């Protein structure tokens, strides 16, 4: 639910969202080889499917955002993957908006990139516990969602004072998501570290 529908944000916001997304996309697509396409697509599809799964968290039902997870597994290539996932959601499954794809990619893609750097930096630290992946996976996953919600909240507030209450509701609704997502990313990254370490971005580029 971090994605915004059409028609809510001020036009200059979603237009600048497109500009930022176009710039980062151009850079990351240059880093990507055509051979990467099939593998990246499968992971994008898997992220998409996983984001349709709902967890019961207290009174509300939350669904995963997975931007932190995408960052940890795909590195900077998470950005085009999130873009594609959002295009899919907007055009084929009609969640989120069309004009807001740019700004939504910024909202989730930039936290994904940040979580990748957090994870990479964390794995270099020597803190003397055996399962560093779980710890830093959880931190990266939690921070990514928190950042995504923060970006969304700022955009809503900048759009208009009348959206203050909506923003509060949105932020409160996402607190359980941050927790669930942190646990989820920690578990899944720990699982990869034992079962298939090459799926983590830091072990090998896809």
């Amino acid at each position, binding site marked *: *639910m971090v994605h915004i*529908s*059409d*028609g*809510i944000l001020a036009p200059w916001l*979603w237009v600048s969202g497109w500009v930022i997304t176009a710039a980062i*996309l151009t850079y990351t*697509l240059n880093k*990507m080889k*055509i*051979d990467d*396409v*099939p*593998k*990246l*697509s*499968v*992971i*994008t*599809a*898997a992220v*998409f*499917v*996983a984001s*349709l*799964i709902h*967890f*019961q*968290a*207290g009174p509300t039902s939350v669904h995963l955002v997975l931007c932190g997870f995408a960052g940890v597994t795909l590195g900077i290539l998470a950005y*085009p993957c999130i*873009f*594609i*996932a959002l*295009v*899919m959601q*907007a*055009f*084929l*499954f*009609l*969640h989120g*908006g*069309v*004009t807001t794809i740019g700004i939504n990619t910024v909202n989730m893609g930039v936290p994904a990139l940040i979580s990748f750097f957090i994870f990479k930096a964390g794995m270099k630290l020597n803190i003397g516990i055996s399962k560093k992946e779980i710890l830093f996976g959880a931190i990266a996953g939690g921070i990514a969602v928190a950042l995504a919600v923060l970006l969304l909240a700022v955009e809503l507030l900048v759009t208009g004072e*009348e*959206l*203050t*209450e*909506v923003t509060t*509701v949105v932020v409160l609704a996402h607190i359980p998501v941050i927790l*669930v997502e942190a*646990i*989820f990313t920690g*578990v*899944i990254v720990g*699982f*990869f570290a034992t*079962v298939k370490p090459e*799926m983590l971005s830091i072990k090998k580029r896809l």
Partner: protein
Amino acid sequence: MISEIDTYAGLSSPIHRWDPRLKVISILALIFSIMLLYDLKLVIASMLFAIILVYISRIPFSFIAGRLKWVFLFVLPFLIILPFTVIGEGVVIAHFGSITLNFRGIESVEFAVMIVIKALTSVMLIFPMIGTSRMDITIKALEDLHLPNKLVQMLAFTYRYIFVLSNEFMLMERSLTSRGFKRGSNLYTITTLSKAIATLFVMSYEQAERVFYAMRSKGYSGKVTTMHEFTLRPQDWLCTVVVCGFAIFIQVAVWYGTLEGT
């Protein structure tokens, strides 16, 4: 779990016969033009135009209504919260203990209604845009429009894999349930589902590797090849002129409106 958007691509209508390249561009232009509007009358006019397009395309309204329902649920909070929240002055309607219900005036209602109509219109327009050609034809059209090849390829692959993987996940869920797993709000549910999803990722990653080698050995080079060739006919241009014309018309109308207003 997920129904495909191009379920009704086999029908025949002027929109179905419209060249996919021009169709995608024109309707996208229209969506962007509507999102720039902040005038309730013009927004309603655009919604009527969208309904006419859907009607011409002969896609059943029941199919669209099923999707619109979810979009409506998403924007509903705006409709409920916006007109009644307290900022600045407002008319007090009722007190519930310490909570005061304020009515902020007809402008707020109009603003909220406009947000909802815009969101619904943009979703409605996606049906004539994507739902009237087969997905592989639309993807070929995107390539013809010179979108970055890597993005087009990723779109094509991801679209196919989403259905494969969601089926696989449903199987996995069924086997979890048959072993007595129940979803609840506890740590156990989260970790179990996380591990199920992790397995899904590992499986799909390995499958992708196999599929990629198989495609490579059959000569995959990263280009879309279909037997479909695009040809532009006068009717294609007529549709384009009508849809793009409306997109430009609403912008001109806004411009005149501001001129008269000042």
